[in-house]
């Protein structure tokens, strides 16, 4: 247990110490929120869908959680590069504990990041339908964070160096984001797009947040949380397996 704790704490300390990185990672969500939120607002309104800022808020929160959780998992690659990974791999602690410590640390960092973006959304004008449900939205944030931190660790364990990073960014992280319904409603889509969006775990996370924050959603919140739980467990198992196979 203490090994999990110390590795969790390490992720947190590293996050708190990288102030420029925190600021930088808030830039992109703000761009989406403010530019798209206000820019597409009038069109969205005219189409009879209400306020786009309200709609895109949960999407932007989901995006920031997605990015920072996957990147913290991929932090494994930096640790490999700078050697710290070896230090943990030869320690008399099971690889499972190391993987869990890292994943929880990464997920915690992602949730903090999500909360910062939530605060920005609230300032910018996101008005939850029922503020009492905000803790539930927090729960969805945690679920998204764990799912993608585990995915990040699974990928980080399988790559050898940073060269694959751009590939992961362009062919995995961005598609997960754009195909999740973060930016557009999931109902009434063309057939193919509808199928793809339903295969994206982030769709369910953002849909879940939307249903508790705005009171409308594409799926039922129960389905949302079940999908996230199942996918999360599967990815944790894959991540732990991949991590246990790392050779330096």
């Amino acid at each position, binding site marked *: 247990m*203490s*090994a999990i*704790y*110390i*590795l969790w704490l*390490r992720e947190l*300390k*590293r996050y708190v*110490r*990288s102030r420029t990185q925190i600021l930088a990672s808030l830039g992109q969500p703000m761009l989406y929120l403010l530019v798209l939120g206000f820019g597409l607002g009038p069109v969205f309104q005219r189409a009879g869908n209400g306020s786009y800022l309200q709609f895109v808020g949960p999407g932007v929160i989901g995006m920031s959680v997605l990015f920072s959780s996957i990147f913290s998992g991929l932090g494994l690659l930096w*640790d490999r590069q*700078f*050697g*710290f*990974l*070896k*230090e*943990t*791999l*030869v*320690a*008399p*602690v*099971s690889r499972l504990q190391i993987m869990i410590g890292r994943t929880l640390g990464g997920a915690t960092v992602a949730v903090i990041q999500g909360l910062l973006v939530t605060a920005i959304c609230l300032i910018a004008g996101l008005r939850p339908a029922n503020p009492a449900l905000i803790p539930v939205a927090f729960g969805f944030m945690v679920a998204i964070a764990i799912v993608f931190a585990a995915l990040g660790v699974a990928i980080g364990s*399988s*790559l*050898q*160096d940073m060269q694959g990073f751009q590939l992961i960014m362009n062919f995995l992280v961005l598609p997960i984001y754009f195909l999740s319904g973060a930016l557009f409603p999931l109902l009434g889509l063309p057939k193919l797009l509808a199928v793809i969006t339903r295969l994206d775990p982030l769709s369910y996370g953002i849909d879940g947040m939307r249903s508790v924050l705005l009171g409308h959603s594409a799926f039922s919140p129960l389905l949302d949380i079940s999908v996230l739980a199942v996918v999360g467990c599967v990815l944790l198992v894959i991540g732990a397996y991949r991590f246990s196979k790392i*050779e*330096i």
Partner: protein
Amino acid sequence: MIRVCNLAKTFGSFTAVDDVSFEVAEGEIFAFLGPNGAGKTTTIKMLTTLLKPTAGSIELDGLDPQTHQNAVRQRFGIVFQDPSLDGDLSAWENMEIHGVLYHVPHKMRRQRSEELLKLFELWDRRDDQVKKFSGGMKRRLEIARGFLHTPKILFLDEPTLGLDPQSRNQLWTHVKRVNETERVTVFLTTHYMDEADRVAHRIGVIDHGKLVAQGTPKAIKEQTGTETLEDAFLKLTGSTIRDESANSADQMRQFAKMWSGGKR
């Protein structure tokens, strides 16, 4: 304490370690010498559960590193050849993480961390982030960290690389002390023959993945008919300069992994 039998490791078509056998007794200081890329680090990685051997068997304290990974990891400590510190954390925090991972009790952890940081003259800088340290300071911190827990076997992979004579002296004095007082078995590699001659009880010389000589420093000098260990070493391994094949071996390993389906 360490028993290695017909050990081999290949990366694709490249043979890094080729049919190596040796034994290290309990309480012994064993120096593993060889030119760059001879297979020293690869051997250490196999001994310390980081790599799977292609063939042959290893026993550490009677246990196979492959099948009893955790039990084996409990028995050794290691100072790596290349850096393994977390640069964003302070020196003290790096020591803390190590202590926790190696189950050193809280009180002892603090006490020993303090002693060791003072011994290696890092105590005044303990709260600074490691990335702000000079190369020599980082090296000293790695070594201090390696001594935080008392293992049965201590692996030192070129520990004196980049150290000034003072720190080097400090290091070997400390190694000898833990070896004598706590019966720690030491397995070390170095490029400084005088160090090996002074510290090691027995020496193994490896070249191109093969063990070419084994015995006490004296026996090796007699066997080759040379005055110093340096001459003996040159006689055994030739005087041609090798590539930095520690790096090319790494690259080959990456290639091997990329193309031979190691990724999936």
